[in-house]
């Protein structure tokens, strides 16, 4: 009888199913996982240390680059922490804009997750469908901030600027690729303002979700690959520090938007889906339902924002820059602008922890100020970090192919885990 022993398999860091730069060292018994040891840090950029060397506002852009598929939610946690330190409140319109863009971000994130998860498990079409819708939402990002992904749109005290009255359109030029008719068709829903475009999206989107569900929810292969895979009990989920859909998939009804409301979440109507079995399939159902709920929230925000114009930034020029037109005539405004951009502002000493319900879970920001214009210490609590730490427990006893399905269900993004 030949000698049988476990062998060690190296998975990643350059493997398309590793969702970035995950290196997994797997101890295998045949095709069954005995132990999984994730090696992380290949994308470590020391964001938190970098933030200690910059005035508060200059680090907002780094937040986008943490979880680079849910950009504005990261910004939200950071600016909320600063606002708490300073003791200021953004105007109501800014809170609604943030709520709307948080939900747009949630859809962006869940689209990315659904597409890649399905791709890993073997369904190509869903990936293409999801990326089609992501385009529209990234156009919304671009319309408000000028950047498709790394927006730096949220600022302490509000948002950078109000929503544009005009949605940018595709240009009709001599194109080898698109006929004038086609471009005109693509511009059809871009004739109005950004809010018109978003409203049009919220009308179309439930139909799109039905498309994904037709492809997956009752799909035999999808269910074989996800039902009963990576099941976590509610007790273990809490022990392991799970948050977000990972926790709700296990049946714990916990959502910061409901339990500790921020922005305008206590003024909009939505439901929290909760799973039953805590396996990959339940987490899939939870996230798909979250897409529908996000759509509902966006619709309500659009209606509110249409009816209620107003300021989107606080009127305190020690924290928010004065208007450019004012600076041309007013000496004090000019000085404020100069001091704000060369030195920043000094929050009073203290420490705060602000958390948002990011698409992946609780994204927290722990800030210590010693009264200087730069943070003394910034700690970012990335939801994916404890999720990935549970990798060993979740894949033990599963087959090698299930590792990919579990990575998919965790919604891993290395920008936030490695920071």
């Amino acid at each position, binding site marked *: 009888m030949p000698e049988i022993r476990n062998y060690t398999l190296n998975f990643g860091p350059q493997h398309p199913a590793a969702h970035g730069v995950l290196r997994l060292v797997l101890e295998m018994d045949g095709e069954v996982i005995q132990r999984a040891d994730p090696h992380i840090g290949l994308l470590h950029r020391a964001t938190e240390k970098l933030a200690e060397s910059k005035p508060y506002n200059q680090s907002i852009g780094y937040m986008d680059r943490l979880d680079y598929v849910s950009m504005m939610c990261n910004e939200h946690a950071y600016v909320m922490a600063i606002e708490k330190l300073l003791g200021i409140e953004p105007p109501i319109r800014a809170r609604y804009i943030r709520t709307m863009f948080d939900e747009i971000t949630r859809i962006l994130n869940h689209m990315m997750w659904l597409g890649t998860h399905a791709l890993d498990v073997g369904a190509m079409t869903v990936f293409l469908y999801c990326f089609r819708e992501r385009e529209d939402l990234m156009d919304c990002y671009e319309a408000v901030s000028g950047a498709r992904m790394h927006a730096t749109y949220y600022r302490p005290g509000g948002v950078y600027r109000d929503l544009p009255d005009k949605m940018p359109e595709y240009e009709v030029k001599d194109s080898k690729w698109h006929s004038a008719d086609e471009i005109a068709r693509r511009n059809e829903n871009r004739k109005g303002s950004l809010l018109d475009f978003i409203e049009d999206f919220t009308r179309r989107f439930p139909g799109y979700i039905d498309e994904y569900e037709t492809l997956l929810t009752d799909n035999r292969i999808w269910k074989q690959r996800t039902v009963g895979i990576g099941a976590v009990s509610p007790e273990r989920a809490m022990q392991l520090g799970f948050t977000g859909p990972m926790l709700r998939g296990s049946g714990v009804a916990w959502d910061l938007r409901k339990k500790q409301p921020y922005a305008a979440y206590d003024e909009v109507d939505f439901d929290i889906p909760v799973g039953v079995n805590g396996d990959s399939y339940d987490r899939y159902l939870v996230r798909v339902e979250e897409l529908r709920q996000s759509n509902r929230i966006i619709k309500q925000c659009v209606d509110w924002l249409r009816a209620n114009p107003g300021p989107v930034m606080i009127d305190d020029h020690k924290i928010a820059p004065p208007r450019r037109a004012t600076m041309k005539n007013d000496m004090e405004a000019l000085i404020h602008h100069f001091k704000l951009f060369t030195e920043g502002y000094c929050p009073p000493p203290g420490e705060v922890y602000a958390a948002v319900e990011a698409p992946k879970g609780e994204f927290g920001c722990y800030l210590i100020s010693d009264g200087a*214009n730069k943070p003394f210490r910034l700690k970012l609590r990335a939801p994916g970090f404890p999720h990935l730490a549970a990798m060993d427990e979740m894949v033990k006893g599963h087959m090698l192919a299930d590792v990919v399905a579990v990575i998919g269900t965790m919604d891993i993004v290395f920008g936030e885990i490695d920071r």
Partner: protein
Amino acid sequence: MSENEQTTPEQRLDALTHAVQERFADKGGELHQDRGEVTLELPREVWREAAFILRDDEAFGFEELTDLCGVDYAGYGQAEWATEAASSGGFSRGAERGLEIDPHQPRRFAVVVHLLSFSKNVRLRLRTFLDTGFPVVDSLVEVWNAANWFEREAFDLFGIMFDGHPDLRRILTDYGFIGHPFRKDFPLVGEVEMRYDPEKGRVVYEPVATQPRTLVPRVIRSGKSYTPETIEKTEAPDA
């Protein structure tokens, strides 16, 4: 959980502070309340014992550890620019670039934990200060398994040891990394850089060639002008 919906955050916070005061006063626990958050400072010796109480006691019920991190308090409250003196001079004359950090200062390292109770819907921050020479504290992995990677991170970045941790390895830095990069005396640009050496046919490590630079000096503006109550009423700062 239904009872939470009737209570306000303030009521929940009050209940928590009372329970904490009652339970931890005799253990040397110090309670701070600031901006609607509660911080409990504990002596290092009762760290794990207190964690068990906070998890299991009916009055607390902190089921989840959301975050654990190290903090290096070296250089706390130091500025690079004496604002008063520099008002008549300018940045180049006023600023002392780089902070003077005393690596032996007492109460330099701390471990900070953020706890969350789902049943009570409250958060609590725990902090314990460690010895500067050999920062070590009991591990919380057996209380909350989530602490595992967070403690590895604090060890990696700050060199804080966790007694009883099952697998205290580096986690974020490179294989074979030397030093603890988030300590305040570790330079922002790092100590070594790497490149591919075509002659040797492999990657080599060398001391960094870049110089650290300060673009915006670290400034502390004290006084009432920056507190939330007076922030709108004051004139422009010394410009």
